């Protein structure tokens, strides 16, 4: 028993080590200057630059236009992540509500159609999606970044399963209490789904935050760039006569990681609750 416990810890610790080590290394490296990093690669001890790289990344405008700094990108990323997550929750809740609570012809068929879009991720339909967004004039807009991505089969599926587990008696009690479809949705279903919404929010926020391909396509204006693209941009722009600002790249990677980490840390207890139990 004792030995087993030691091994459990060894396995867990090594897992933690492999997960956290790259992050720690990136942070340590970001405290050196670019030349040192260029010359001798990743660093294992703190350097003499302190948090200078972070200040540069956040407040010094870069890129071709020299108009965009890290803060703007952070804002863009937040808008994308939040819009993506909230949009997905709203759309999939409404879709699931329609499927579960309203008798309309071929409801099940509709659900499976939605479900089968899992087979068609963005990468598969990227050209037609771009075509449509372009025709709608939504290139280089936040709507263009967010709207085409918010239909979610996964979200619809989760909410459908959740709604189906809500007892019929509750629906009937609400009907007798004079709650119409909207009232029932807002007063009963939404509060009941809180944990579920939190769980889906985490997944979708992180997913939206990390989007790379779609923003790259749809935004060419640097003022719409997200943090994730910013990393690439630093590397691109300074290639040439100068040494790339590796310290800034590391700093930006760390910065890009922080918001999702914060979201996960805050919501993680809800996350587990939402996926394994329900508040009924």
């Amino acid at each position, binding site marked *: 028993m004792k030995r087993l416990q030691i091994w459990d810890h060894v396995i867990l610790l090594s897992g933690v080590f492999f997960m956290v080590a790259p992050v720690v290394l990136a942070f340590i490296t970001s405290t050196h200057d670019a030349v040192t990093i260029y010359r001798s690669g990743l660093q294992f001890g703190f350097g003499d630059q302190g948090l200078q790289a972070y200040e540069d990344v956040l407040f010094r405008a870069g890129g071709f236009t020299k108009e965009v700094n890290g803060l703007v990108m952070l804002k863009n990323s937040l808008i994308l992540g939040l819009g993506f997550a909230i949009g997905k929750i709203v759309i999939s809740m409404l879709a699931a509500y329609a499927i579960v609570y309203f008798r309309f012809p071929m409801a099940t068929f509709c659900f499976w159609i939605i479900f089968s879009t899992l087979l068609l991720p963005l990468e598969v339909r990227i050209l037609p999606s771009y075509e449509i967004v372009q025709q709608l004039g939504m290139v280089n807009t936040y709507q263009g970044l967010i709207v085409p991505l918010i239909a979610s089969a996964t979200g619809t599926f989760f909410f459908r399963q959740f709604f189906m587990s809500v007892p019929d*008696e*509750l629906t*009937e*009690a609400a*009907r*007798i209490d004079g*709650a119409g479809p909207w009232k029932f949705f807002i007063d*009963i279903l939404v*509060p009941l789904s*809180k944990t579920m919404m939190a769980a889906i929010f985490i997944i979708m926020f992180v997913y939206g935050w990390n989007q790379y391909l779609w923003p790259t396509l749809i935004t060419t204006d640097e003022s719409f760039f997200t943090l994730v693209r910013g990393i690439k941009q630093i590397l691109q722009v300074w290639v040439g006569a100068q040494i790339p600002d590796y310290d800034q790249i590391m700093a930006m990677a760390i910065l890009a990681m922080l918001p999702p980490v914060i979201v996960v840390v805050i919501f993680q207890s809800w996350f587990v609750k939402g996926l394994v139990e329900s508040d009924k």
Partner: protein
Amino acid sequence: MSTITLDTVRKVYAGDVEAVKGVSIDIADGEFIVLVGPSGCGKSTLLRMIAGLEDITTGEISIGDRVVNKVDPADRDIAMVFQNYALYPHMSVYNNLAYGLKNRNMDKAEIDRRVKEAARILEIGDYLDRKPRALSGGQRQRVAMGRAIVREPAAFLFDEPLSNLDAKLRVQMRVEIKRLQKGLGTTSVYVTHDQLEAMTLADRLVVLNGGNIEQIGAPIDVYDKPASTFVASFIGSPAMNLLKVKGDENGLSLVSGKGLSGANAFGKSAYTLGIRPEHMSVVEAPKGDGNSGVDLEIKVNVLEPVGAESYIYGEFAESGEEIVVRVESHSTYEPGQTLFLRAEPKDVHFFDAETGARIES
């Protein structure tokens, strides 16, 4: 408060399953009606049709003077108490009670008055701020009833409201429901499969079987004169003993071979004879005096003492037909022992062997 009238109400589900087959009941103002029957007899469907949660296939349901077939549940002026309470889990007890009133845009002060009043009647005043999760089963049941009371509806509909409670609490709540209903004088329809609940609560019982009404009547009348073998075996606990009887020109005889005193007054060749366990007494020897009572001879299988009384589970040696007899508490009978039983004429019921219908003597 108002009457409820069901006029040949039928319910046919998809796939031609006829759950309710033309049921007519007139429920008087303030009356407590209990729909009772085994599962699948259509009692819940009937209640849900009154509530408006199920469509009515044919027939008419009126509440007061108004035909409500096409009226939304919220507008029928009824309140329902569900088996699993169906409390809104995320709302406090207060809001659970107030929700239906808020949806009707009632004045805040009036809502408050009604909620407080219901809480006082049901003694749940201390829990108004709690969530249902933090309440015991009995308390939740009270809240569910409170939600019905605050509405001050024309009728209460109860769908097996006590079946999730433990035995002791069930008796307590049963008494309370009855007291409450009498106090408020609200017309009530109550669905249960528990014949004891049905007997104790009802002003009138409606015994349902397979979507049909078997019998409507005051509980004691249903007990005294069951209209069919189905009612006879359903109302009363333990159930009435039903024995096969042959009739010919010489008189009646049990299938077990023993003759019955009394003539074959109804001129049929086969009957079902019903005697309740509590209506037989153990005698020294068969009377055989030609009196129209029934003398039986059985073999004891098991003696089951329940405290206040004991039950003998026995059988007829010849036919193997089983019989239950109530005897006094502290009786001592040995398995295998032979007993003579006697039932008086007034306690003996005759039913048609084929249709199960009661034959009046």
